[in-house]
């Protein structure tokens, strides 16, 4: 840990690593720009109906448990869901699949009788599963690093473009200083493994800025109350 308050003069460094102003520097795959917000038309229900028609598919949170991994509704819970990797057979009970597996086995999986969730990586598109969204009671967006901002946009697209109304879970690098932003773009459950964040949540000490300059979501701000950009936190 570098000294915090008294920084000793550094020698003029030579051969320093690359400039380090940036917070996040992805180590991700080489990137080929493709259609942003993809353009392919998709069949299926109107966005407003997606994910909303079948509320019975929603899965209740796991049992409250201070040691549980999932922060939801102001408390830690056990995870009601099982994550399935690779080729493993579907277990009994709610299961979260990688998006790619869903795409590969959509025919068989669509008819199964178990609640399904998807985990979506930051670089993955949404439009090729837009018509399927009502099938999922949970979508988990992965934060490989807390500095990767793509899941914030994916969350807004799911909620505001595709009308997804099921559980939206943040998984991966989920830290206390980002929770408020995550909630504001539509996340409503959080898989939290970072010990200081778990302590801060349990003790209810996460200072937040409870005033917003920008609405998210689709509802218009009430006329004549606050200026257009402003809302107080719920």
């Amino acid at each position, binding site marked *: *840990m*570098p000294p*915090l*308050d*008294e*920084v000793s*003069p550094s020698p*003029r460094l*030579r051969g320093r690593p*690359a*400039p*380090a*102003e*940036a*917070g*996040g*520097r*992805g*180590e*991700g*795959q*080489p*990137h080929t*720009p493709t*259609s*942003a*917000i993809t*353009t392919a038309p998709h069949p299926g229900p109107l966005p407003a109906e997606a994910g909303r028609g079948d509320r019975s598919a929603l899965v209740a949170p796991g049992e409250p448990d201070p040691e549980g991994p999932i922060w939801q509704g102001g408390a830690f819970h056990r995870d009601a869901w099982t994550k399935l990797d690779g080729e493993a057979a579907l277990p009994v009970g709610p299961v979260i699949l990688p998006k790619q597996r869903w795409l590969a086995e959509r025919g068989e999986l669509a008819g199964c009788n178990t609640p399904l969730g998807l985990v979506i990586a930051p670089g993955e598109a949404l439009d090729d599963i837009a018509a399927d969204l009502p099938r999922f009671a949970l979508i988990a967006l992965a934060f490989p690093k*807390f*500095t*990767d*901002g*793509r899941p*914030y*946009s*994916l969350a*807004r697209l799911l909620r505001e473009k595709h009308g997804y109304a099921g559980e939206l879970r943040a998984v991966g690098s989920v830290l206390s*200083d980002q929770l*408020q*932003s*995550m909630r504001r*773009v539509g996340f409503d459950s959080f898989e939290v493994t970072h010990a*200081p964040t778990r302590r801060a949540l349990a003790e209810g000490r996460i*200072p*937040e*800025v*409870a*005033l*917003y*300059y*920008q609405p*998210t*979501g689709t*509802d*218009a701000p009430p006329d004549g109350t*606050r*200026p*257009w*950009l*402003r809302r107080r936190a719920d």
Partner: protein
Amino acid sequence: MYRYDEFDAEFVRQRTAQFRDQVGRRLSGELTEDEFKPLRLRNGVYLQLHAYMLRIAIPYGTLSSRQMRKLAHIARTYDRGTGHFTTRQNLQFNWPRLSDIPDILGELAEVEMHAIQTSGNCIRNVTADHFAGAAADEVADPRPYAEIIRQWSSLHPEFNWLPRKFKVGVTGSEHDRAAIKTHDIGLHLKRLADGRLGFAVWVGGGQGRSPFLAELIRDDLPEADLLSYLEAILRVYNLHGRRDNIYKARIKILVHDLGAEAFAAQVEEEWRRIRDGVLKLPQAEIDRIRAYFAPPAYDERPVPAPPRAAGRAFDRWITRNTHAHKQAGHAIVTISLKPIGGIPGDASAAQMDAVADLAERYSLDEVRVTHEQNLVLPHVRSGDLWQVYRGLEAIGLAEGNAGLVTDIIACPGLDYCALANARSIPIAQRISERLSPRQDQIGDLKIKISGCINACGHHHVGHIGILGVEKRGEEHYQLLLGGSGAEDAALADIAGPGFGPEGIVDAVEKVVTTYLELRSNPQEPFLATYRRLGATPFKDALYAAA
């Protein structure tokens, strides 16, 4: 000027409390440096070569005298008595203690200022024409829109973790003093075909290792759609900007790789979905913000100029450092922070206090900060110019060199910056000293110096640009020619092999001497001569003898 209401004030208070908690968690070890760094950057705190640095936002470059006095107070109390004005209408303090920074932010909040998003991979402080609201050549004041963007972008939950930093600049004049084509988004406020106000939207400009000038993606954006269009651009960038390589992560690379047309098509598609949503700006709200920037109450009584000592220095200052005002009987005054041989952009606490006094007395309480690292008194009555000049003379800031060869932009360089490869400030000082005797003869010539490829000193758009690099452990300087950051924007060409710290000063002088020999007449500025003749005669002069 914009004034905070209770909402704005409470917002900044809460943000300061949040940052105080983050600093506390770092000092206690709860946050690792890797976790803390992106958080502190989003509040303008860097860890530099010798100390922490705090970068304070001066949104669209507008300050009141009260705010300027607070900056002087902070310089005196928490720093070593000096502030450094930057190329993005920010002020940097180079010596604060981390544990003092929450208190500094508290002091700033008292005068409606902050350091929110002056760094980090997020939407940075919004910049605008420093003559906004005063310039005779202005179509409309860009600051109300810059303020709207400032509010919208503050702690935006979706766009706080972009692939890379994101800069927005706004101009309301055809003559671009805000360098909008070097911004991630440059907005040109103008009259649309239907006579209403709107924007030309330029995207993908930027300097750094791979410089690009911005591309025009929409020429007729109605003002009501400003925020929804920005949101569409940011969303496309946030999802698809590269995150695998810091040098390829700016939006300029995405725009370049996709092509401006394809990029624009994606933006337009997203915009069509959201343009009639919650971000549509009601006219009443635009008017409400605009009212804050209404023309001040000019004193229209003629003021007889007091007797003054005849002097070439004052005449030079009038010629170079005053600009036509839209209000008769008034002038815009540029206060040069480039005394000959001085450090570009530096101002002492005493100078800041004195400028605040002059602004209060002679400029309707307003000061501006320019991206060229100077200050501006935007509303000075013609009859007061002599007193203003005398006041500036008393604090050593009366150099009449605005736009001349000694009005040099320079980044902090290796004297302060953890990223730099070479020093910038001493090079600026030596060039200033060397060329100052001939500066009037030379005329308009912008020299811009960066101490590394990140290009904070804007070397790519200098008429003469200088880039400090490291070569075999020594400081080495590349020379670039023919750039411009104005409405005739162009990227400069590398002249040839670089020079050492002494050689670069000689080389600049050689270029200038060659220009003086080659110009068609004394009114032809350097850039025009360069564009007419190309690089060859300058290269010949630089390298032929070697």
